[in-house]
């Protein structure tokens, strides 16, 4: 889980690392944009070999939910 949070946080340039926790509602982050969503899907594919679709990612609201979603597809 922590490794996932780190990889997710790495996509961001301006957000403080302490803002990233399992419960973080990532779409509420100031920096969040549609490009961040694309980068997240890209990261998940490269690092976890899971090809998540944009619609599937919409089911997750917190980082933990996203992590669980990715793990369920492995």
């Amino acid at each position: 889980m922590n490794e996932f949070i780190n990889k997710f946080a790495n996509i961001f340039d301006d957000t403080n690392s302490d803002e990233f926790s399992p419960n973080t509602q990532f779409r509420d982050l100031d920096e969040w944009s549609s490009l961040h969503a694309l980068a997240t899907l890209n990261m998940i594919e490269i690092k976890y070999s899971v090809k998540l679709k944009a619609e599937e990612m919409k089911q997750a609201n917190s980082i933990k939910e996203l992590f669980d979603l990715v793990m369920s597809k492995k």
Partner: protein
Amino acid sequence: MKCLIENIKIQAIATYLPTNILEMTSLNDLYSEKYVKMVMNATGVNRVHVADEKQTASDMCFEAANMLIEKEKIEKEEIDGLVFVSQTADYRAPATSIILQDKLGLSKETVCFDIPYGCSGYIYGIFQAATLIGSGACSNVLVLAGDTTTKLINSKDRSQRMVFGDCGSATMVCKGEDQIGFHICSDGSQFDKVIVPAGGFRIPSSEETRKEFVDSEENVRTQENLYMDGSAVFNFIIKYGQESINTLLQYMKWDKDEVNFYALHQATRFTISYLRKRLKLDNEKAPINISNYGNTGPSTIPLVLTDLGYIGSGVETNKWDKVIMSAYGVGLSWGSVACNLSETHIYKPINQ
């Protein structure tokens, strides 16, 4: 395609920015402050330069070329090749490069080419010039690269309007003592990911193609406007942008940290920042200068070089003996160039 072309040098680079400026925050009322803020955050674009109504890409490149010829004290009769890289040519026919041959007062013994590529275009332009010189066909080739993308997009297409800006450039490529490495690729299976669907002969212009429609993200366009599939392009840049740079570094036997400057096509701040992270490049060596200009298509590479490394800027470009340029765009096409710019005269952008 990978190759090394020898006995060549990039002598000088100049760029021209139109004087009208569109501040992104001026779109707050039209698009909503929240939307504008979110997009600016991701694209990194605060403002763009916009060509005048009657100003074309060739006009902008003409200004840059004129300045270059004057500053470099080039004898016009010595220029024997002209390459015009643009997707916003003056006419469907004739080629704009020939019109420029006349406007610039070049000799009739000049060979002229139009290369209709966009964001990846500069790579193609330099490649064309290099092959002309490397083969002995030409001695001095002017590469003029620019686009008026703001005229190709629909002003009600929010996503595009906040990304693209206009700019023209001129680069002088001559016989010399350097070598330039190239890596260029194409993938036509993704031709529809960045496209102006109608107006060619596949889908001729008609009343139907001029009708505006609204897409799923509230962007308005017609079939005669530029369309870009954002997520496909993002994935493409991250994957192939990385691969191309790594391929060329390996081919040149350069270590990525030996490279003094990475001039990357400025697609959006986020994309370049992400690409940079994936390649583990030093931020200072791979700068992002999109904030004042937007994505200016085939002129982003000369623009990042002139904007940041112009004579008088204080940057030690005489140390730029290993430079990587990399671009990716419509086609889909992509490629990288490995060159020496330590003796190149880099001029401050006109109207910076």
